[in-house]
């Protein structure tokens, strides 16, 4: 085939995809919550990508997630305080926009760099868990029998543990590092995907088009990849998008409990709030020191909210039974 023909073929092949996406976009447009969700995530995506520009690390060659400190005073200072540390001034900082936390760590810097850390945590945990879940879910759902029974009993066992508690136990055993926290969360999380995918596959498997595919001689692999998965994957993706928020919350919770493995003074939203605890429990009113925990809290909250809104909106959009005005 000539390249020109191929191009034409490609164009024709893309047309329906574009058509479908247009319908999707139209529906997204009609749901204000999903627009909000998408904008929040775009905002955080930009923060993560533009972090080196928005908050350039003052010390070259150092870990950029380590929050720069401005002096050694223990008490936090409110937003708008002038920067005194020469290295930071040199890097272009004039004021602490969000103030400083205890030990003079800059809150603004921590919040900005926290975004990329949150994305990393969410994507890594959910991504790996999703892959494991896909493979096991396909095996269990498509072949059934003893594999299915064993896998389901295993997921039962994992489900019997409250997620955070099992993750806690695993991190305690593995050692407190961020990688171990993520590993523990993956171990805790994948069975839920196995379950969802299995259920979806069991549903799709009964459809006539799957049998029709077998009737023309498709191999099992082809049946799964071409016929079952494309029709089974969407509910799983919705769950996954909701879970990215949940993962970030879990890591933050572990951070808060002091078992996250994130080094002290790191740009981790959960840890920033955790350290702020002392300034509230100590009897400080909301008007004093509010910035220490409120600002990182709002960052975590909005980030998670973004994913939840997205997942929720997609659930409505993709659900063909829900057709509304």
């Amino acid at each position, binding site marked *: 085939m000539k390249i020109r023909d191929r191009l034409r073929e490609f164009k024709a092949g893309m047309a329906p995809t574009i058509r479908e996406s247009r319908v999707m976009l139209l529906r997204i447009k009609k749901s204000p*919550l999903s627009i909000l969700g998408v904008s929040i995530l775009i905002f955080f995506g930009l923060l993560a990508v533009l972090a080196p520009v928005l908050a350039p690390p003052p010390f070259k060659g150092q870990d950029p997630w380590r929050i720069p400190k401005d002096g050694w005073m223990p008490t936090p200072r409110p937003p708008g305080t002038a920067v005194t540390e020469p290295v930071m001034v040199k890097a272009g900082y004039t004021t602490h926009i969000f103030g400083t936390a205890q030990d003079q760590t800059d809150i603004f810097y921590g919040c900005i760099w926290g975004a990329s850390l949150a994305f990393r945590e969410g994507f890594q945990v959910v991504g790996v868990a999703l892959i494991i879940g896909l493979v096991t879910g396909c095996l269990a759902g498509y072949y059934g029998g003893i594999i299915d029974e064993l896998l389901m*009993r*295993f997921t*039962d*066992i*994992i*489900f*019997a*543990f*409250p*997620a*955070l*508690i*099992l993750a*806690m*136990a*695993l*991190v*305690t*055993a*593995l050692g407190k590092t961020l990688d171990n926290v993520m590993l523990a969360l993956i171990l805790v999380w994948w069975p839920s995907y196995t379950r969802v995918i299995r259920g979806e596959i069991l549903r799709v498997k009964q459809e006539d088009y799957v049998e029709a595919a077998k009737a023309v001689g498709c191999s099992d692999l082809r049946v799964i990849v071409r016929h079952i998965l494309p029709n089974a994957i969407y509910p799983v993706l919705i769950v996954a998008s909701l879970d990215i*928020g949940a993962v970030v*919350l879990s890591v*933050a*919770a572990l951070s*808060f*409990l*002091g*078992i996250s493995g994130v080094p002290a003074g790191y740009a981790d939203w*959960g840890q920033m*709030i*955790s350290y*702020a*605890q002392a300034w*509230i*429990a100590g*009897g*400080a*009113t*909301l*008007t004093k020191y*509010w910035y220490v*925990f*409120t600002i990182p*809290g709002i960052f*975590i*909250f909005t980030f*998670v*909210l973004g994913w*939840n*809104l997205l997942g*929720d909106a997609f659930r409505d959009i993709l659900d063909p*039974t829900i057709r*509304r*005005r």
Partner: protein
Amino acid sequence: MGSRAFIIRRLLLVIPTLIGISLLIFSVISLFTPAQRAFLYVSNPEKGVDLPTIIKQYGLDQPVYVQYWIWLQEVLRGNLGWTKVGNGQVMAVLLHRLPATAEIVLYTAPIVVLLGIFLGIQSAVHRDTIIDHATRTVAIIGWSLPTFWLGLVLIAIFFSSLGWFPSGDRLTLTFIEVVRKPSFMKYTGLNSIDALLNGRFDIFVDAIRHLVLPVATLVTIQIALIVRVMRSSMLEALGKGYIITAKAKGLSKKEVINKHARRNALIPAITLAGILTASMLSGVVITETIFHINGIGRFAATAAREVDAPAVLGFALFSCLIFIFTNLIVDIVYAYIDPRIRLE
């Protein structure tokens, strides 16, 4: 399958699950250092910890399956090891601290379940109206909030700024003294209930005042899920044919919703209620830590920070058992509510 066979099958399934859980916990154990592991078998370190003796006695130098067997026997005997953090036997410490946690769950669970079901139904019935949007927005916000942050914010507002509620502990100091006295009968270990039984209304009020913030925190976080499930199952039920039948019979909207839709929609919500107890234990860990309540959750959190293996594992095992037990009850209830399951 008759309902009897269903329940027997459900009971029998508990056995492999329990074995699996023990295996899983044991494999987590083998991740620990030998010294940490040894503490799993200690029942009182004050008598002196002699590592070589323990290793010998509990076969820690033996093959894995022997170790597992010995460990399992110890667990079945109720010996979960010694905790440095709690300074006692894990089992004893857990039981001692359980009432504090139970008290939180006692007030949280009914509110979450009943309010969640109510809001879910309202949201579905008034679909796409302001009630629906408001409920869903509040639920999704609640779900996106970090538990610990919400707790801190509530403390900052209601304790630090307004001074309405205490920031932590279970009782005011003076009352703790009262409660400790032998004249104060401890029936349940739950302060609020014991206070009522002892006729001390002031202590009851105080205990409730201490519970408001932790319970509010947990409810806000947990309610979202049940609202969401109830809403969607209610919407599903409302779209079913039998709803049209009910309307065609001439029943009022209230009767249609309360009698025909709700009962069907409740079935998935009941399942969820069981699962919620499990996630509530996760929430309890954080809530207790924030509000300084000496329940099993805070104990576990401290233990995890201090790498106190027996305590963490004991707590994990404990919460597992609670989960299995509640789920079993839920399943049995379920088998009686849904006539279809009895015949499957």
